[in-house]
């Protein structure tokens, strides 16, 4: 509601850029007073009063899902609906990325909401983060000093904070080619079917000769940033696929212990911890079953 002390969203100027370097130039020039407009679905909800300059990047050619020898490259401006429907995200384990976008937002806002926007908004509950982290994805960043790469796992600095420096723009996400026999699952629990996650989780297993070589358990909305439950992951690595069903209880218990949830109007910390355990357990079983089917 209206509050005496809340100033209004009244940007001075709007720029529509045609190139990445134009965008970078404006972002560097105006710093915190500038806001990137991609899909608009976060910016126009929060309407931050400190923003004086809008840099509309929606026309940049960053809307693609490409596959090459290195893996899958997703342009930062790819809409969540395009991700959900992309034919290049049908194969396992990349389908977990499409799965996450299906669980997000509404069918309407996802026509405009972008994967880059979801990551840069950096909500602890960002649904795109856990599957990308589970697949060891990298964020490609372009700035005044050139290009750099950061693991998506290291992209978040805190609630609503990323590691982007002044003038930097997230341009692409690179999901490296997964080792053979990698499968993943994503689960989310909200209050209704369309909701910000109370808890979300992505689980990924890479299994060769029946032994788990790499495990990722990534949880969102249970800490200031999306986190990996490394203790739980360690319990899985080196174990046989056959042992997993017997371990899900303890592994998910461990994952829940590694969370640092808060209580807010969406859920209490205790409930979040309980959900973290249940969702991890279910996602893990789901991945194990996928191996069973193949």
């Amino acid at each position, binding site marked *: 509601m*209206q509050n005496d002390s809340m100033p*209004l969203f*009244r940007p001075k100027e709007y720029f529509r850029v045609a190139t990445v370097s134009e965008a970078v130039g404006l972002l560097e020039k105006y710093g915190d007073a500038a806001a990137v407009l991609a899909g608009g679905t976060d910016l126009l909800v929060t309407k931050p009063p400190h923003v004086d300059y809008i840099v509309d990047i929606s026309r940049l050619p960053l809307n693609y899902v490409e596959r090459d020898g290195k893996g899958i490259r997703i342009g930062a401006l790819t809409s969540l609906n395009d991700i959900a429907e992309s034919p290049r995200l049908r194969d396992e384990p990349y389908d977990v990325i499409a799965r996450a976008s299906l669980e997000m937002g509404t069918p309407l806002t996802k026509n405009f909401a972008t994967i880059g926007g979801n990551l840069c908004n950096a909500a602890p509950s960002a649904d795109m983060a856990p599957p990308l982290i589970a697949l060891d994805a990298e964020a490609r960043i372009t700035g005044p000093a050139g290009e750099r790469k950061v693991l998506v796992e290291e992209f978040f600095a805190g609630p609503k904070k990323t590691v982007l420096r002044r003038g930097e723009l997230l341009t692409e996400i690179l999901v490296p080619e997964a080792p053979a026999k990698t499968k993943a699952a994503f689960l989310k629990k909200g*209050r209704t079917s369309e909701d910000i996650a109370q808890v979300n989780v992505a689980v990924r297993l890479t299994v060769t000769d029946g032994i788990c070589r790499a495990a990722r358990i990534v949880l969102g909305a249970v800490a200031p940033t999306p986190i990996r439950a490394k203790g739980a992951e360690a319990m899985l690595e080196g174990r046989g696929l056959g042992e997993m069903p017997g371990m899900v209880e303890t592994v998910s218990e461990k994952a829940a212990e590694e969370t640092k949830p808060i209580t807010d*109007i*969406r859920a209490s910390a205790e409930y979040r911890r*309980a959900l973290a355990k249940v969702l991890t357990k279910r996602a893990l079983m789901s991945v194990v079953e996928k191996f069973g089917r193949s």
Partner: protein
Amino acid sequence: MAHEHGELTVVGKPLPRRDALEKVTGKAQYPTDLELPGMLYAKILRSPYAHAKILSIDTSKAEAYPGVEAVITFKDIPDRRYGYGLNDQPMLARGKVRYVGEPVAAVAARDLDTAEEALELIDVKYEELPAVYDVEEAFKPDCPVVIHEDYANYELTFFPPAKMDVKRPNVANHFIIRRGDVEEGFKEADYVLEGKFRTPRQQHVPMEPHAAMARIENDGSVTVWASSQQPYLLINQISTLLDIPPSKIRVIVPYLGGGFGNKTQLKAEGICIALAQKTGKPVKCVFTREEVNCGTTSRGGTVSRIKMGVKKDGKVVAMECEILYSSGAYSGDAFVYSTRGPFQAAGTYKIPNLKLDSYLVYVNEPVSGAFRGFGNPELNWGIEIMMNRAADMIGMDRAKFRKINLLREGDEGGFGEIMHSLGTEECLEKTLRELSWEEELRKKEGIWRKGKGIAVGNKYSIAPSASYATVKVHVDGTIEVRISAIEIGQGSTTILAQIAAEYFGLPLEKIKMVVADTAVTPFDFGTVSSRVTYHVGNAILKACEGLKRQICELAARKMDVKPEDLDVKGRKIFSKHDPSKKIGIEDLFSPTLGMGHIGKYAEVGGELIQSATFFSKMGKMDPATNQLLNKHEKSCSFWIEIANGAIVDVDTETGEVKVRKFVNACDVGRAINPMLVEGQLDGGSVMGIGLGLWEEMIFKDGRIMNSNFIDYKLPRASDLPAVKDTVSIIVETPHREGPYGAKGVGEATMICAPAAIADAIHDATGVWITELPMTSEKLYYLLHKKA
């Protein structure tokens, strides 16, 4: 009223609604769409504190801001208050603010941006006061926070007057029912059980926010376009607050994008008028969604305690209820609904010994107002859970238990009246059949559990209340009906046209409806309490009878017969003895000749127009017991009976509930338009599911934390059962006084949904939830209760 009719040709038919075409093409106009040339935009400055003294208000910077044409505070308007039962609410805060969101000042500016910016420049200095938010705390005699220190001096406006309790400074009213002797009843009982129940503050969420637009006419009178379900009440409130005679106030209500009771009280109208008076220009105000949540009414929370005594044979012998209704910071419709919610205890079951105490309690929260059900769903919640617990306790099937206790035609209801038109049993039977009640559900083990539940309820329609209708004949035989019932989506305009069409034997297209412009359309109590079909429908029939008489009198002169010998059907007036002797309606009028054709006119009698009142009485009650002195009189206009059923799946690991099937059976007397009645039932089912599973207004220090849809969770299409599993059942037990036997439906559609779902959850898991909403987190804790 008793109305004889042969086979019906229009009433009872699922005809497409009259406003469908304009709504489906985007042409329909709502208050938010209106504009006038030269119009200014208004914004309201609202209190950020739940309870505070206003030390000073400095509007000078706002007034000097480019584009601002006026700023008003309490100083610019008369020192008046409005309310229900007691006049306790100022239009703009005076001296004190009592809830977060209370209007303190308002601005009119040339564009909306300027108005928003100007609000930032109004400087209000507050001294915060301690506040009370919990209704049980506020109820205490020694509650340290007193919200209305001078309520003893408030003007009382009701009969009977507000019963304030000097020992409890935050109690604005106390309503009782005393029937029989509960203490004796409990002694007679084989089992006595008690329960405590809570419901939260919940929001109607009409899809369209509130809006008002006001214009001062050259003679000083006021025209206001309003989001109002009760235009005549609005005239009264504006008149009281701004010292304008009612005859100089005109209220126009276009289509409303939903009402549900949210649009019964003055909101932006008075402020727009005051600003229009000050600036000399039209002024419009549109609320944001956040403002709808904090600045309009909502259903206040409740705490109730119910004690029930039952015998082994299944008879409920005694029931004791105490319910605290949160009024919020002022007395709005909640004043009335705290006296009408108790009807829930009186209209479904035969309870020989009943003791009920209902209290209206002030807390520092937004004002509570009418919300579909008007206090009944909150009490039904507790009563139905207790009925299910009682059935459990004596080991009897819950449906059988209910049937033993249902009120039936001719029984004495909870207020002592002889009950009429109760289709409860048929509603229940049909619900049970839909649920395959006899079949045990499997899936009582494992993570997902399935359960079935039922609940029964009632909704009265308020008396006393009155409606006028005016009907007129046009020279081409069109019948024009003028009424002030509001089209909030329920289809009133269509079904009232159907009633008029049926009366005259005309097709629907020959009825012209003129709706909700008080310059032209006559008095109506309001589009509330599920009353429009019955009261306005009856008024139309009475007016049509008068019009028929007037037509026959005029025709008699032309046909040289006695008026009593004539009847009217279709567009013909014919002799009852010899139907071949007839004239057309057009023949009643003579053409203007000589001076050119200026149209046709009736040579005597003036316009063919009649107006009628339909008035519904409430019988006299003994004030010590609220029992009718004469059992043949009525406590209300009529009772609508309801049964609901639900089948749910419960995820016992997360507490998530999925409704797989929902049944809503309602006795509406007669469905004037079955398609529209089904639409109401469908919508009520889903609203009930939402209020049962997810919806609550969450407050912190009196401030709403979830004022938008991101966190006030509403059911979406995917959250709900399939079309074939959302079953709406129309039951018809005609009411001898209803138009063609019709009663009403609007609120009945969501009286007992939450209780049916709670019963299904209990069937699935063995757990009783007593507090709404039944979120997954709440159920999780109940399922995993740690020692």
